[in-house]
């Protein structure tokens, strides 16, 4: 155990001397936090919409006003071009064409057709625009008294949004970012630390002593979990201040979960480091594997349930998935241990597997042929 601690101490000394790794540990994660925290916006806002009103009557103008009243759309002028040309040039994401007999037909209780052209390049957005235009049209009809207010539906849903009543997007995104940051950077630092010993030949001294692979790796594991905790503290503190996050309920799930999650991330880094031959390989391996899985297969942005079958199995062994469950619970849901008891267990299992494989790779503590 003494040798593990001396290994850990040496590793921390090296870490704090190397400005580049310190930057990698603290500056880059904060940058990632800011970029993701501010740049990822899933809700559709400020969509440019062009309206061609051939009627130009009182009713048609009221309808147009209604469209822009939600603030979801911003008006963009057509200026002589056709509606399709506006879409082609990308000036508008959608155009609405109001026929000349709009008001007349409504008043004579005949159905009227309003044409809406929607840019379908962005499928998701197109769907949002479509729904929004529909809803606005319905609302316009009702508010103008053109259809009876309580006419059709016998069921009236009474909606209330639980956990995040203001539907603040930051509450959804930021806890997910923790999962990405606290996986990618600690694993990258650990893999660099290991591979650097290979590159600089210092590993030979370790080989030439009787230190075992487990002792050697445990020392590094410990050191980088400590570094990772520092990182977690800084990132979470900045995030709560910037994005106005609060603990909901029991913080112990987050504390225990973070320690275990960092352990798994560092173990993964050690595994990559044990396999990689140089720093480039180590950085690329941890960065690509980390970002891909933590972004795409963890439920950070895209629902896990949407991942198709064979790939959905992979998401079960992505620790970030479980950690995001923990962070979302800690910052949004607040159910505590009852809600996420399984998550730390799953992460510990996966992390333990990584560590075991890393020690297997190095178990002889010798050069390979």
């Amino acid at each position, binding site marked *: 155990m003494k040798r593990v601690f*001396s290994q850990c101490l*040496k590793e921390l000394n*090296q870490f704090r001397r190397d400005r580049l790794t310190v930057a990698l540990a603290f500056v880059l994660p904060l940058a990632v936090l800011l970029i993701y925290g501010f740049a990822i916006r899933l809700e559709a806002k400020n969509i440019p919409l062009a309206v061609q009103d051939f009627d130009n009557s009182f009713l048609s103008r009221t309808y147009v006003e209604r469209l822009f009243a939600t603030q979801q759309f911003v008006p963009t002028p057509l200026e002589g071009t056709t509606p399709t040309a506006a879409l082609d040039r990308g000036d508008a994401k959608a155009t609405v064409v109001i026929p000349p007999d709009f008001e007349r037909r409504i008043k004579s209780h005949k159905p009227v057709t309003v044409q809406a052209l929607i840019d379908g390049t962005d499928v998701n957005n197109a769907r949002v625009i479509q729904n929004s235009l529909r809803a606005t049209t319905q609302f316009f009809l009702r508010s103008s008294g053109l259809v009876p207010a309580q006419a059709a539906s016998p069921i009236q849903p009474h909606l209330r949004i639980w956990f995040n009543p203001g539907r603040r997007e930051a509450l959804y995104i930021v806890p997910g970012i923790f999962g990405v940051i606290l996986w990618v950077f600690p694993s990258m630092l650990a893999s660099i630390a290991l591979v650097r010993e290979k590159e600089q*030949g*210092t590993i030979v001294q*370790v080989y*030439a002593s009787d230190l075992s692979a487990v002792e050697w790796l445990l020392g590094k594991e410990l050191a980088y979990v400590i570094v990772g905790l520092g990182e977690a503290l800084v990132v979470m503190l900045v995030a709560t201040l910037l994005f106005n996050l609060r603990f909901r309920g029991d913080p112990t799930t987050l504390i225990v979960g973070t320690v275990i999650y960092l352990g798994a991330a560092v173990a993964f880094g050690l595994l990559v480091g044990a396999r990689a031959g140089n720093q480039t390989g180590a950085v690329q391996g941890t960065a690509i594997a980390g970002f891909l899985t933590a972004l795409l297969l963890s439920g950070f942005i895209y629902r896990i349930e949407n991942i198709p079958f064979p790939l959905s199995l992979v998401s079960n062994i992505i620790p970030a998935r479980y950690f995001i469950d923990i962070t979302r619970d800690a910052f949004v849901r607040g159910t505590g241990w009852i809600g996420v008891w399984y998550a730390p267990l799953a992460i510990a299992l996966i992390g333990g597997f990584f560590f075991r494989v890393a020690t297997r790779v190095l178990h002889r503590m*010798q*050069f390979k*042929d």
Partner: protein
Amino acid sequence: MVLSQPPAAIAAQTSAIAVRSLRKRYGAVEALKGIDFAVQPGEIFGLIGPDGAGKTTTFQILAGVMESTSGEVNVLGTAPRNARLDLGYVTQKFSLYADLSIEENMRYSAGLRQVEGAEFESRARSLLQRVDLDRFRDRLAGQLSGGMKQKLALCCALVARPQVLLLDEPTTGVDPVSRREFWDLLAAVAAEGVTVVAATPYLDEAERCHRIALIYAGEIQQIGTVQELRDNLGLRRMEVRAESLDEAERALSQVQGTESPLFKGAATAGDPSDSIASEAIPPAPPGKGGGLNRGTERPLSKGAATAGDASAIVDIQTFGDRLDVMVTDAERGDQQIRAVLAQHDIALKDLRQDEPTLENVFVNQLRQQGLDPAYLEFPAYRSGKEKGGRAIDTHRLQKTFGSFQAVKGVDITVRYGEIYGLLGANGAGKTTTIKMLCGLLPASGGEIELAGQTSDLNRSEVRSRIGYMSQKFTLYDDLTILQNLEFYCGVYGVPKKLRREKIDWVLETCGLAGRENLTTGSLPGGWKQRVSFGASVMHEPDILFLDEPTSGVDPLARRQFWRLIRDFARRGTAILVTTHYLEEAENCNTMAFMVAGVIVAQGSPSGIKTSQPGQLIELVSGQTQAASDFLKERLEPWRVAIFGDRLHLVLDHPERELDEIHRWLAEADIEVQSARPIPFSLEDAFIGIVQRAEGA
């Protein structure tokens, strides 16, 4: 060829290290082809050989960090892996953590071997004091000089009190003064009973070992004490200084004994006007098992016939300002050399005999195996510059990187037809100087004149007259050798019709004819270096810059290199070459020695040696270590150095001081068997210059 090798049965019991038919294979490559040796406790055993000979592999197996393919390895009576805690291992790159301090590095190394607490404190303090690093305990290892790093690595290895110390080229690229201190330290450590196995590419360091093994291509060629190996060669070395070395070499090579069928082709097909035959002829192979070829009868050769007697001359090597002639018998050789030179009206300035160098031993050994690379004349089409004109001239040349002054006012003049050697340890500023001279790096101050130009040195007219071979290979690893050479022909604008011939010359000279379609990356370092030299001279430059052309090249290839370089010089090319092998400086006409960005000495090799005040004395004593310790207290420590079982002393006034030293040693009850003056080596000269400058 194995001498003084104890029988294996005894060796296993008494020796610290015993290796029997050790083999190591990496895929298809056999790095070690069955080597045997044994090292006695307290012995300094040297493993001498070029890069790729198998030294590092041997060390890794001895240190227990790699498995052997087959064979027996016994370290301290057990398998190397079990002996790891009693081993100290210093690798080529020193294995230090650059971002940890001296103290932290020591503590970590000690911790790995479970030396802690008060025990660590006391050992670390005494070791660091001994190597004079105690003052810098908190300095980061990355900020230390090469010599200090090397000492720290040794301390890290010694802190656990190992019984065996394995040192894999610990002195490569380190300045001569530090190297000598390091070997002094090793001698002291060995005297305390630690067994030392050290590898070195410097043949002068090999002389400081008790016994050495010459290793080449995975096989041990010879084992013995340096003296044994020299005696076994059975040749004497004559140093010839004459008015015209070229003519002297030509004259002497005509009477050189020749009998090997291997090189008859070269000797008869050679160009009679030049020195083709001079080096291509190997001496008679001595019989197996240490047979001496001294006095063996040689058949008459064409050269011997002109001399009227069996020729005593076996080999001739040209250096910057002298010839080394290997002769079978000193007296006959002396007569023959004088006679031949008189016959050709060449004034002899000086002729002295000396022992053969280790390099002679090594070269001779390799030649017997037919490993001598072919020598072919370069197909020259441009008439070179007239000799003697100034090719390179610098005045107070300076370079500053940030706050670090890499080159501090260097004055160099190189003339056409001259070989100028720039020597110094790694980091002395050699490469920076060369880069400024060929326009790759702007100078921070001072003036440069290159081929008559003083500004815009990287214009294409200037560049087309320059050849540059850099320390790192400039070849593309994933192209074939042929593609690389064709590329460089294109880059340097070699006329199309001449390309084939030049490329053929490079391939033949490198011994790669017929293998030109190999990818360059698959070649070992030494071969790449030859191809890369070829690539840099194909356009027949007037000025040639060679940055460490010979590092990692075996002695035979190194000689071939220098011959090629000399040929270019003869044609009027100005050549500036850097090296950290001091012994190579002998090949230069003029040399300069750089320390920390400053030239501390400049002149011809002989000039520098003879301008040394004082005399070098070789002292043989039964108690070498005791004598050394004793004398180091009375004289300045740098004046005393242990070479194997002898002591070298630098005395400014030997006539007075020697008597006094005899008296001191007698009083201290240290017996002196002999004390005789020996000539300075360049190494001695530089250490003297540097130390005197520091003392002043």
